[in-house]
């Protein structure tokens, strides 16, 4: 009887500690989350008398919406950043791994883009990519490599790839640090023994280094893939979605929130796109949990 009272007392105490957190998460996260699914089934504009339940109509409309397909295509294309970022950051980590003089300085400098806000990074890079006065075109035209400025951010063929290179550039330092931590777990005796036995650098990397850092390869792939699906700021700052660069999140923002858009906000329709994004993120999370489970259990 007494222990039962003690248990009840502890439950009450536990919820006292958890109360502020549960209030914030419930009000600002779970409640709007449920609403998002509800709104995605509605024709919804705040303050409009015509808000009504329309079933799957928003999703049906998405199927025939060219802008949505472009955004979805760009979001999926953005996943191409993942292998590039993994390969380059691993190479970078291998470069700065040895404890030689000033190595800390170099590592820190490569990390600066990570701590700098994306808005500033994107602006700095638009000064480089600008067709008319950008640094890159000045160099290219000046050296005679091209006859006129390359439309890095204005041509639909190139713009998305230019922006992706900025995303990759900003992230490299972060994944470099993850790989530096992982490289410490590479069994040193094994590397030395292999080298003494005359193994080539590539063979050591392939057979000793890579298997030991593989868990971080998986982890980094998941983190960067989910980040790639949510890309927004680079697009907003560098092209405003022009030159066929709108991604899903940019399209959601434009359709549901951007007041500067003339044709009125369509929050229900935008929420339907949000549901598509949610499904993509969930698919990657589920896939990653399964892979990691298998990895850690073996």
């Amino acid at each position, binding site marked *: 009887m007494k222990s039962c009272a003690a248990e009840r007392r*502890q*439950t009450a*105490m*536990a*919820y006292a*500690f*958890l109360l*502020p*957190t549960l209030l*914030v*998460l419930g009000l600002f*996260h779970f*409640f*709007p*989350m449920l*609403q*998002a699914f509800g709104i995605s089934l509605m024709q919804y504009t705040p303050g409009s008398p015509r808000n009504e339940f329309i079933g799957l109509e928003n999703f049906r409309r998405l199927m025939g919406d060219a802008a949505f397909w472009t955004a979805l295509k760009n979001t999926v294309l953005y996943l191409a950043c993942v292998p590039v970022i993994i390969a380059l950051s691993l190479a970078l980590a291998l*470069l700065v791994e*040895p*404890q030689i003089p000033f190595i800390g300085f*170099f590592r820190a*400098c*490569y990390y600066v883009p990570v*701590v*700098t*806000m*994306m*808005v*500033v990074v994107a*602006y*700095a890079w638009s*000064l*480089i990519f600008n067709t008319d*006065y950008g*640094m890159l075109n*000045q*160099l290219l035209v000046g050296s005679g490599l091209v006859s006129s400025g390359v439309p890095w951010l204005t041509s639909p063929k190139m713009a998305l790839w230019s922006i992706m290179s900025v995303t990759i*550039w900003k992230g*490299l330092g*972060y994944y470099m*640090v*993850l790989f530096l*931590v992982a490289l410490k777990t590479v069994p*040193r005796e094994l590397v030395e023994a292999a*080298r003494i036995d005359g193994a080539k650098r590539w063979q050591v990397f392939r057979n000793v280094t890579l298997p030991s850092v593989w868990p971080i390869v998986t982890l980094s792939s998941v*983190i960067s893939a989910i980040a790639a699906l*949510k890309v927004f700021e680079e697009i*907003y*700052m560098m092209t405003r979605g022009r030159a066929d660069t709108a991604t899903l*999140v940019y399209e*959601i*923002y434009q359709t549901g*929130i951007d007041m500067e858009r003339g044709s009125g906000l369509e*929050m229900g329709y*935008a*929420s339907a796109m*949000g549901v598509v*994004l*949610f499904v993509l*993120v969930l698919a990657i999370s589920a896939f990653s949990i399964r892979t990691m489970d298998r990895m850690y259990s073996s």
Partner: protein
Amino acid sequence: MARNKQLRAGSGESGLRIPATELVWRYALMVALLGLFIGPFLWMVSLSFRGTENVYALRLIPEDPTLRNYIDVFRYFPLGRAFANSIFVALFTVGLNLMLCSLAAYPLARFQFLGKRVVFLLILSTLMIPFQLYMIPLYVMSLKLGLADTLWGIILPGCVGAFGIYLIKQHYQTIPVTLDEAARIDGAGDFAIWWRIMLPLTKPAIAALAIFIFVGTWSDFLWPLIIINSTDKFTLPIAVAKLSGAFIDRSQYIAAGSTLAALPVIIMFFLMQRRFIGGLTLGAVKG
């Protein structure tokens, strides 16, 4: 002969020797990469010191360096206000996160109570669900609650987070339970145990979490962009974005504003590198 040319790697713990030729190409490559990673920022900073002539001329040191742009950007744009707003938002977001995350983590680490598993899974589930899914209903709700176009509207939705709770909980679990029991025998209540034992013993984790939250909040863009309308409520990232709309023909102003906005975090980073990198990689390694 070749063996004599080999240099011993500096750390001592590393037994591998690096040949001199390899050292040369390593440093050459690292210096070249320095240009790639720092160059774009230097170009922007260079632009911020230029007068009105030859703004984009290909040189790092301006012909006639001037501080004019820095003064003007404050005069023609409420950048000072944006700084104050960003500091306000960052202080409260970090402070509330530290407090709420450590409070919530305590029962999750120490108590047996009804619904514990459900509560913990609910908290963790927020990590899997993209904010971009529900930012629209959250915005509508903020309008109704009178939080739209206020700094508190930025702070409140982000004032506690699953990752912080998880991190602190993991650290609480490394503290021996015997410490709590001893304190309990001395008559301490749950709150006193949390405040006097758990909190002081998790200081490094709390510092790391503070940096993690601070950097995230300082750079946060999408939600403030949605919820803030008035110029006097802009945070720095919004101010930088609006600057580039307002002064299209004055890149020097935008460059000056961007440099100032990015500088505080970069300075903090160089002052506390270890802490910073530790704090920012927490998200991946522990989560």
